[in-house]
């Protein structure tokens, strides 16, 4: 089959990406097992058309993400203490979003209120995503975007009231939190490698 090597490489890539989400003790074996089926699917003579074999192979590789969600999820359950923290965050997020909506109703022409609402919704999205699925990988992008938006909100407020140093302090604190998160992830990656 033409482009067989590229297709296999793509399949290997998808399986590899899925396996990266598995606990470390079963990761290598699952990868070996799932990647071992890819050439067999690509050469399955029961399927006459080569494009159909390619599609089936890629569908197989892509669906391993679902297998990981079902098998790997159990290894990453949220602890009761973490669940309590996430529920508190959820309540705080609901209150914040309610407050932001109230502010928009009071002053619909003020753009900062919409920025604050977007920030509040992101802060709400984090506990929702974590409670809905333990170990969700959506958590990090939400935190990063939420923190960046928080920095933007505080800088905007600082621009509106240049004498108020609290806004600069809040923006600097959020930027520092972002730096800590980045450093922690870098360290975790280095440890894994």
């Amino acid at each position, binding site marked *: 089959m033409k482009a067989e090597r590229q297709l296999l490489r793509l399949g290997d890539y998808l399986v590899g990406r899925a396996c990266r989400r598995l606990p470390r003790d079963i990761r290598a074996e699952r990868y070996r*097992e*799932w990647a*071992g089926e890819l050439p067999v699917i690509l050469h399955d003579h029961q399927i006459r058309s080569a494009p159909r074999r390619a599609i089936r192979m890629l569908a197989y590789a892509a669906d391993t993400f*679902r297998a990981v969600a079902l098998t790997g999820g159990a290894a990453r359950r949220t602890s009761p203490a973490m669940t309590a923290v996430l529920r508190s965050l959820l309540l705080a997020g609901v209150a914040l979003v309610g407050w932001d909506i109230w502010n928009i109703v009071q002053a619909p022409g003020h753009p900062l209120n919409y920025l604050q609402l977007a920030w509040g919704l992101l802060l709400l999205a984090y506990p929702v995503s974590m409670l809905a699925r333990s170990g969700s990988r959506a958590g990090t992008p939400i935190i990063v975007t939420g923190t960046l938006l928080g920095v933007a909100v505080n800088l905007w407020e600082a621009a509106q009231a240049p004498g108020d140093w609290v806004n600069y302090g809040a923006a600097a604190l959020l930027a520092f939190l972002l730096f800590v998160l980045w450093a922690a992830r870098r360290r975790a990656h280095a440890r894994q490698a």
Partner: protein
Amino acid sequence: MRMTGPLERVLGAFLADVVAPRYGYDLMKEARLPSGTLYPLLARLERQKLVVSAWDTPQQVGQRPRKYYQLTGEGIRIARLEIAQASSRRHHAPAVAGRPAPGSMG
């Protein structure tokens, strides 16, 4: 063991030939299940010691090793029992009452 449609199909595929080694892709085709459904089921059956797995040795250089699965003795017994029970439940399930035809209720 909670019998579900996919599980019944996987056990049925195993029971079609209990001594044959079954690879993931073959089971997918026989049970008509996607990989994302099949592998968690196999992992669960392996944890329950109803299925054992092993690696085959590649016949040619460059061939990738494949993992195969087989039912254990206990797995065969339980699979046969569960499939028979599921089949019996289906036979004895009360027929779903159809909607009465218009005008048939007097």
